[in-house]
């Protein structure tokens, strides 16, 4: 291979890349906020004792788990406006698709955490006179959150990577900007390498943090 690397052309595109990065971070952050909050709510629904509440919640989860994320995004972009006659800006649409996808995966993570809370703790809550919502908020959620945290964070990084999929529906995220620059400058190798490096640099610290948390939990459990 006698390819001459040339990164100079990128200097003129820093502004565009920065804008793309901001969109990507925005997509990932808002999706995570949605996923973390709605995910817990959805998890509670799947644990409800009424079949007609449990069943649709489970169906929602299976829908997002059993179809490709790319398809979900495309479906949201093309089908939601047609079906419901609403036109939302592309970023919001992307956030919705990614956020609901994450909601489904996080609900499963939360569920494992909720089910790990010992039954005796629920009895103790009754004995202490705590109401159902107080029990959920002060006793179940904090414990479930703690044990589910590594999986929730891994899912969170996952959604940062998957946010690149919205480039296909012309949301101007990092991936989309990168693709445009690569095509305009005929320099795919440099551009895509740089983009990959940016995604990597954003994800690695979080992945390391997850590992550290898991080690700490193992130590705590061994005690």
């Amino acid at each position, binding site marked *: 291979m006698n390819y001459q690397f040339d990164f100079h052309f990128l200097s003129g595109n820093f502004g565009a890349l920065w804008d793309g990065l901001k969109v990507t971070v925005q997509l990932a952050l808002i999706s995570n906020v949605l996923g973390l909050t709605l995910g817990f709510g959805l998890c509670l629904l799947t644990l409800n004792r009424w079949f007609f509440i449990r069943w649709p919640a489970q169906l929602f989860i299976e829908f997002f788990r059993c179809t490709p994320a790319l398809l979900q995004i495309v479906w949201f972009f093309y089908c939601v406006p047609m079906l419901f006659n609403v036109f939302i800006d592309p970023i919001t649409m992307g956030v919705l698709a990614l956020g609901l996808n994450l909601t489904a995966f996080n609900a499963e993570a939360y569920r494992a955490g909720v089910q790990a809370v*010992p039954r*005796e*703790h629920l*009895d*103790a809550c*009754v*004995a*202490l*006179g*705590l109401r159902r919502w*107080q029990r959920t908020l*002060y*006793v179940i959620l*904090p*414990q479930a959150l*703690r044990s589910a945290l590594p999986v929730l964070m891994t899912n969170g990084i996952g959604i940062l990577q998957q946010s690149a999929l919205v480039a296909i529906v012309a949301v101007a995220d990092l991936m989309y900007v990168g693709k445009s620059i690569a095509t305009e400058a005929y320099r795919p190798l440099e551009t895509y390498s740089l983009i990959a490096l940016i995604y990597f640099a954003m994800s690695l610290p979080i992945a390391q943090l997850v590992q550290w948390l898991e080690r700490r939990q193992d130590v*705590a459990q061994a*005690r």
Partner: protein
Amino acid sequence: MTTSHRVAIAPSASLVPNIADANFIQLRDVYKSYGEGLVVMDCLSLDMRADDRLVIIGPSGSGKSSLLRVMMGLESIQGGTISFQGKPYIDGNSSKGRGKPLDVSLQTQIGMVFQHYTLFPHLSVLSNLILAPMKVHGLSKAQATEKARMFLARLGLENKLNGYPSQLSGGQKQRVAIARALMLEPKLMLFDEVTSALDPEMVTEVQSVMMQLAEEKMAMIIVTHDMHFAKNIASRVVFCANGKVVEQGHPSQIFTQPKEPRTREFLKKVLHLD
């Protein structure tokens, strides 16, 4: 039994129920079964006075723990009635309350300590103690903290205030669990095999706290396999088998001259094992 620091652990004198109240708790024909096969309470009737310390003994599966769990509202009954402080508390004969407590204000006057540690691991000792007083009784954080300090000091655990449950020994955990229940100023305390999961050397520290409560005339129902402790703490021993009360009486009578053959048989077995 060491009772070196004889300071009151019950929060106030008003807590102690009226001694004259003979109708403190009345169970009438209480029926409870799990599915078809397992009947744990079979037309069980029992009275308790406000100054009683009932110790329930009996073979496993005889409904001892079920009785406590029903009183606490953790499980329902399918027949009979229970009154508490002269008021209807649980009605298993009608669909009202579905066999669970009818009156939340009565339910909150009962405290319970369990066999397994039930301190919330994500909360400090202090937060474990003040959670319910703040959320259920509406105490301010300052009031609740003050109260928690007082209880922990009396149980000799004041230096554990900011510790976490994982940093406590089993005996300390159970003592904090007792303090947590006492924070709500219950009129009745239920103890469900609270020393069964403990290492032998930690049993005494928990039992001495219970003895202290007994001296302060706290009404309690205790389920235990420790016959020696039962003899010491009980004002009345109730022997249950097959979901029925077989025999009850003063501990000295039950342990030395049991009337019923079933009681004799049971005591022979457990005392031999000791």
